[in-house]
């Protein structure tokens, strides 16, 4: 099993990495790049805590071979803030009390971001559908829904 070279853009920075063929994206992001905001809650694709964006689409890092991410652009929770300012979704999660233990939070926010990028004003049902693959054990989801919903009223032109 020899290591192979891949090129990935992670949070706008390009990396050339030698990875094992059996390496998952979770391992590459967490162990090689130190992006520990990518959480591993189940390692079998169920909990959604490891959700990252691959070319803007949410994927489970734990179910993705790093080889499959060769040539793609990955965004993790660490890449969401810009110029030292949190993304409006991050702000909204804080202000709505949508964060309790925080372990599911990075995945929740990444999947919400993908939804809002594609559909800036989703209905409640669309938000629930998008987040139906992310487990949270603390909140009962109500404040997470409120946090995402509130950001949909923000005018994207004005930004946040």
């Amino acid at each position: 099993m020899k290591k192979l070279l891949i090129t990935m853009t992670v949070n706008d920075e390009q990396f050339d990495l030698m990875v094992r063929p059996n390496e998952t994206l979770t391992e590459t992001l967490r162990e090689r790049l130190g992006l520990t905001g990518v959480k591993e809650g189940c390692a079998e694709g169920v909990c959604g805590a490891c959700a990252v964006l691959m070319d803007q689409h949410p994927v489970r890092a734990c179910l993705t071979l790093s080889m499959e991410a060769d040539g793609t652009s990955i965004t993790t929770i660490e890449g969401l803030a810009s110029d030292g300012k949190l993304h409006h979704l991050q702000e909204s999660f804080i202000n709505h009390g949508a964060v309790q233990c925080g372990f599911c939070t990075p995945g929740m926010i990444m999947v919400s971001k993908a939804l809002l990028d594609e559909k800036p004003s989703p209905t409640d049902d669309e938000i629930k559908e998008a987040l139906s693959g992310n487990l949270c054990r603390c909140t009962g989801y109500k404040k997470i829904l409120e946090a995402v919903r509130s950001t949909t009223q923000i005018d994207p032109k004005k930004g946040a």
Partner: protein
Amino acid sequence: MRLPAFDYYSPTSIENAIQIKNEFGGSAVILAGGTDLIVNLKNRVIAPSVVISLKNLRELRKIDLAGDSLVIGAGASLSQVACNENVQRHFPILVDAIKHIGAPSIQRHRGSIGGNLCLNPRCLFYNQSFFWRKGKGSCLRTGGKTCLALEKAESCQAICSADTAPVIVALSGQLTIVGRAGSRSCSAQEFFTGKGETPFNLGPDEILTEIRIPIPWAPISSSYKRLSYRSAIDFPVINAACVATFEQEKIFRFRLVVSAAGPAPITLKDLESTFIGREPSQELFSEAEQAAVRAVEGIVVDNSIASKQYRVKMAGVMARRVTQSALTASRR
């Protein structure tokens, strides 16, 4: 959980892929979206020496009308299929089935239609970690001599849990399979062998490349339903698909498929002739229910979170519901 060691190939042509598959045979597995495969690798239920990624095979991702069929590349992502105009126009039942798979953020972009059809049949005694299985001993599918779910079983009783399987069978899909000897066609029905150890009619050198669904000459009525304990991130407890066409007010063609019962989707063949010429009625729906219960009774075993008795009865309920829904829905 680490993955076992393997070599990795990402061929750029189908020929090349077949060549690699041919070279390594049964010890090579195909990686499409990976949402099923990676978990099985982590649990060591399969231990291939080679993984062949389809990521560079763009030709496998096409969805086109060809003559009287819609041809869906096996590598097309589930979201690509669900969003395709032709799929939406001709086969809304397939869109419906895809919406039930896992969850949008898990499968929709990574998962492929071919991958879903080839979902490894599931069993509570098989889909467990290596450590877990060590305590229980090997089963028929992991090299042992007995089935842990059904002592006297001669073959593995794992459950075909793919949402698209009953739908593709109900739509009379034809699968294109390419191997060393060239390309062959196989009906979706025949693709499923009914044996959990070797669930698919696929040789060690073969790859599923496309799914061809005949476009019906008349508007079709169809319905897909599944029962599950959660409305997402869940495999079906039982699922069913029904497709029918009418001539005037009478049934002209009818197909009912029940799945998530045993290793293969179950087509209720008898009904395909006995329902012809009849009009939808409560009596007819009940007949569908009874036929489904009879058909799955000898097939369902205790190998899922839901009990055998319950799954048998629910096969009847789902069969009745899809029949009623398909036969009373507006036609397309």
